[in-house]
């Protein structure tokens, strides 16, 4: 079974579950599922059980996890008393970080730090890493100083490469595919969207659009591999 961890509001995640279900068993997991009795995580030991659709399941039933949630927010917890939501959201985030880091199956992406889906790097980190890897990149500027002149905005269409495990999708250009793969490896991300303009790196994030059948098939194959 493939688990898609997402917001309860995320329609694209529900569509992803439906798409993955064409290849095999798939289920949606939201923060509300963490309020159903049956979760167990041990140290030492790791995850033992989870709860899907109200039913406790052994963790061995999970073949892979796709994370489409950056963090559990209070908005994800309508069944929790409002006064308790900040605490419960923080605890659930910590639980999911620990659970996803320890589960012994492919996870796209494993959490890094406080971010549930991959490295959670800010734009400046991606840009600096690109330069350090020898990848041409557009400079990144942000300023709160009113006297600084606004930088001219680069023009040109964005090209996006989606990295899923060891494979890249989205452009026939080999150099961009290799570059996206390099960045994903440097960040420790198995699922990544890398954006380019005029052959230069612009930005990256760990929430690629997975609405195409090709990408869903690629994701399923990566889990199976």
């Amino acid at each position, binding site marked *: 079974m493939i688990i898609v961890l997402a917001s309860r509001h995320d329609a694209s995640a529900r569509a992803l579950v439906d798409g993955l279900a064409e290849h095999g068993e798939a289920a949606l997991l939201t923060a509300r599922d963490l309020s159903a009795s049956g979760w167990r995580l041990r140290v030492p030991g790791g995850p033992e059980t989870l709860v899907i659709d109200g039913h406790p399941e052994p963790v061995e039933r999970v073949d892979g996890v796709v994370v489409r949630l950056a963090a559990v927010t209070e908005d994800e917890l309508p069944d929790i008393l409002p006064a308790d939501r900040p605490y419960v959201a923080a605890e*659930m985030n910590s639980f999911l970080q620990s659970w996803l880091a320890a589960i012994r199956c492919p996870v796209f992406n494993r959490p890094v730090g406080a971010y549930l889906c991959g490295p959670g790097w800010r734009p400046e980190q991606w840009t600096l890493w690109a330069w350090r890897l020898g990848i041409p990149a557009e400079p990144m500027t942000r300023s709160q100083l009113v006297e600084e002149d606004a930088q001219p905005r680069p023009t040109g269409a964005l090209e996006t490469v989606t990295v899923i495990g060891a494979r890249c999708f989205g452009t026939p250009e080999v150099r961009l595919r290799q570059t996206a793969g390099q960045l994903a490896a440097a960040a420790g991300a198995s699922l990544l969207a890398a954006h380019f303009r005029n052959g230069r790196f612009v930005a990256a994030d760990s929430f690629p659009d997975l609405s195409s059948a090709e990408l869903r098939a690629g994701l399923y194959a990566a889990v199976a591999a």
Partner: protein
Amino acid sequence: MRTPILLWGLSGDSPLDAVFGALQNLEADLFFVDQRRILESQISLHVDREVRGCLQVGGRTVDLASVAGIYLRPYDTRKLPALRDAQPGQHAWEHALGFDDAMLSWLEISEALVINRPSAMAPNNAKPLQLNAIRAAGFSVPETLVTNDAAAALEFRERHRAVVYKSISGMRSIVHRFDDSRLERLADLAACPTQFQQFVPGLEHRVHIVGDEVFACTIRSEADDYRYAEADAGVDIRPCALPAEIAERCVRMVAGMQLHLAGIDMRRTPSGEWFCFEVNPSPAFTYYEEATGQSIADAVAELLSGARHPSPLARETAGVS
């Protein structure tokens, strides 16, 4: 020459004030980013093959590339007095959160000595994750179950007899015994997975690591959580020396976590086994400093100003991440 030392946090915060004072004694070039002045603070960040920019607070400006050391203890900006009446979408709110986001980005990529980088501090907000890192460093850890299953919690208590429960996130909570008086609350357990831990008897130790320097003390208290002990319960804190092997293991563990400052909670059992419960990357060390006379703030200030060297292992493993 890179000289300024930057402090970020709230004036009045005890550890921050202590390090500020210690740096003044060293006649360091100080730049204090006081969160009380968040609406007077601006940052500009430019990144290509190098990191440049500047930071302004009131009329003072610092070149980001010139900063040699940074000590941070920021509070939740959304709760600052300056934002009491602000709402998301309003200029003050967006300015303050934008400032924080740029600061947090810079702290990850700055070449200055950062105590500590946010990414290195993050595992402390997921205690089971950090426990695995502590185990990997060679310390014993208490058997731990995180569950929202009442039957599993009861079975765990049956097996270990003495069990405590506490939070796993960065939210502070009081450690409680899982005794019979708590059974009536088990019905609430399903709402959120909760951490239950084998109670480990022994002598409490708090160990502060600054670079490769060790400041250890013992804590004697009758309370389950000495931090919240009643005034008349008495908390006796005294400086102590750790066995060399344990001290070295602490330094290596902290350096391996890419931390330059940490407060480690440990217990030595009657049989001599050392258990480690948590590595706090932003310790309120002044509480222990006042009780023991240990010069922890001075050590932090010396590390920031370059008067002492960071742990070689932490230096090797620190980087852009």
